[in-house]
């Protein structure tokens, strides 16, 4: 796939051209915050985003509340024709999360058509993260601020110009008219990549972390970790790779909807009999961390956390998943596998 080059001035005009054919979603300023929202013109887009907009981009594919079916005596699927979309300006960690969610929501037997149709109609153009935030740790969990694996195209800012890695044919459509990058320009990007990555945390030893956490399952470690947890849903709702949802009926509107749900809520796993397999914050915190670092690894061979840092940054009591992982790595748990 080709690598292209473009000046800042030209790049800023590019989304305007896309707007003719696509709905473009990009980080724009919404009050005090940034959010991935529908763009009306290029000028709205915030180009230099050091840290991730708090509301994750997964909401464009798995909306927080989505109507699944309508009811008129029986339930009918809501079928929507998805407009072609460009999702622009997300960081590689968010792009990776979206790819991870494909594993969770699309299986051969029962694909989630709502997710799939939105996914197929969207071109993902991510921008490299050249000044990662304090809370960022994508390199620790197998990603990189310059990760090219999960997007249709990746844009890297170098000295006020931009290098565009076209990564799929889908992505190529948007940049077909640009000139190819020269070797000197590519070198600049590689240098920058090395420099930024060098300042980021080292990768967790995936296997050791997996085994340690499993061994810790029934230890007091989790009591310690969860003691200050409030039990709110901030970490999971803002997490780009959390996908749990609840299905509910809105009788007034005669709709069956799905809403994001959170394993941190008491009612999440509460059964009608009153039995709750995860009765306290300890089990719930454990589930969240284990899901990211153990169960995802068992299922797809990758850590399910993408290191975007949102849960670290917005947790009201500063429960830091990086610190939990580090802590688990450096402890000895009984019955630990060698």
């Amino acid at each position: 796939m080709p690598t292209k080059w473009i000046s800042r001035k030209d790049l800023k005009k590019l989304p305007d051209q896309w707007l003719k054919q696509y709905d473009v979603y990009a980080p724009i300023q919404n009050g005090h915050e940034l959010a991935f929202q529908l763009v009306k013109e290029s000028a709205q887009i915030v180009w230099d985003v050091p840290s991730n907009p708090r509301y994750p981009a997964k909401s464009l594919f798995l909306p927080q509340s989505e109507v699944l079916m309508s009811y008129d005596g029986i339930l009918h699927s809501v079928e929507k024709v998805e407009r072609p979309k460009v999702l622009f300006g997300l960081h590689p960690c968010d792009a990776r999360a979206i790819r991870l969610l494909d594993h969770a929501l699309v299986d051969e037997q029962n694909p989630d058509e709502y997710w799939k149709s939105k996914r197929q109609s969207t071109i993902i153009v991510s921008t490299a993260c050249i000044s990662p935030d304090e809370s960022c740790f994508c390199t620790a969990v197998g990603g990189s601020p310059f990760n090219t694996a999960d997007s249709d195209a990746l844009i890297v800012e170098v000295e006020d110009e931009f290098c565009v890695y076209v990564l799929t044919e889908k992505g190529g459509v948007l940049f077909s008219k640009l000139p190819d990058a020269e070797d000197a320009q590519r070198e600049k990007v590689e240098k920058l990549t090395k420099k930024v990555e060098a300042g980021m945390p080292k990768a967790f030893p995936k296997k050791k972390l997996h085994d340690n956490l499993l061994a810790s399952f029934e230890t007091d470690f989790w009591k310690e970790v969860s003691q200050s947890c409030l039990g709110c849903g901030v970490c999971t709702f803002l997490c780009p790779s959390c996908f749990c949802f609840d299905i509910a009926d809105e009788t007034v509107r005669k709709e069956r909807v799905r809403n994001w749900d959170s394993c941190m809520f008491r009612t999440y796993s509460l059964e009608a009999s009153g039995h709750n397999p995860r009765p306290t914050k300890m089990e719930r915190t454990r589930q969240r961390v284990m899901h990211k670092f153990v169960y995802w690894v068992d299922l797809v061979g990758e850590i399910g956390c993408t290191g975007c840092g949102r849960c670290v940054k917005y947790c009201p009591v500063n429960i830091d998943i990086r610190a939990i992982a580090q802590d688990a790595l450096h402890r000895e748990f009984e019955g630990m596998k060698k």
Partner: protein
Amino acid sequence: MPNTRDQKIQAEAKRLLQDGVVDVVIGFQKGTLPYKMQPCFISRADEVAKLTLNGLCSNNLAVYLNHWPKGEKTAIIVRGCESRAIQTLVLENRHARENLYLIGVPCIGILDLQKIGQQELQPVLAVQEEGDQVRVTFGNGEKLFKRNEALHDACLHCNHPQPLNADVVIDEAGLFEDGSFDKSYLHAFRNLSAKKRNEVFRAEAERCIRCYACREACPMCYCEECFVNHSRPQWIDSTIAPSGQQGWHIIRAFHQTGRCVSCGACERACPMNIKMTYLTDLLNQDMAAEYGFEAGLDAAAAPPFLTLGEDKGKFTGEQEEDHAN
């Protein structure tokens, strides 16, 4: 770098643990980000050096008492709002006062991360409190705030920053005296037109993502089953439709009438920066005007919704007034 306030807190905590007065001390320790402190639970005397208290300690520690083993002797570091919250919790029989040891600290206010610029646009690298100034280091340089400008609204409107009914009060000056601030901002809100008031409310509520951080951060929200989780019937729209968001904020606030201690922990916990203490403040102001009641000030006075007797005489004339409407 421990300041004298921290050292005094640590010394007191150490004494309590060493003498076996308490089993655990609930306080704050340094967090993993430069602008975050983390609640901590110290049960060994050699760990007290972790304890600190500064303007970045944004939670109300009383919230932990709701799920705390009832018999455990517990010390808790309290500022004004925390002491009032505990007073209310004790009044509501959530906890026995004799099992608690309150280490009072005159409040220096809590910084508002939003006001000091913790947002997506520039990373915060360090926050330093220097007397009545706050120095914040951003990715692209430093900025100096006047402390009053950087304080959270709830602290600016706080009338009782001094800890009440504490077992010991750390000998350090607080930032304000009791009664030094008022809630005149509420008058401004009340004086807006009906349309404007609703617009403000709607604009705040519509950012809600229903994560219930406000509920969980609040010491007064301790119901086993919250009304939003109720399924038979389902009172509040489960989605992020406006009716669901508004319903949540209206009833959440209303359940706090005469109970909310205006600490603002809900607002600081909110990941979407939704303003919500004005709702409970409005209700509290009514309670103060109507019944002369303020939550948490008097260890023996129950909130107005639980005391009814004196209404009997006043009640009759009212329906005529309503007829006239």
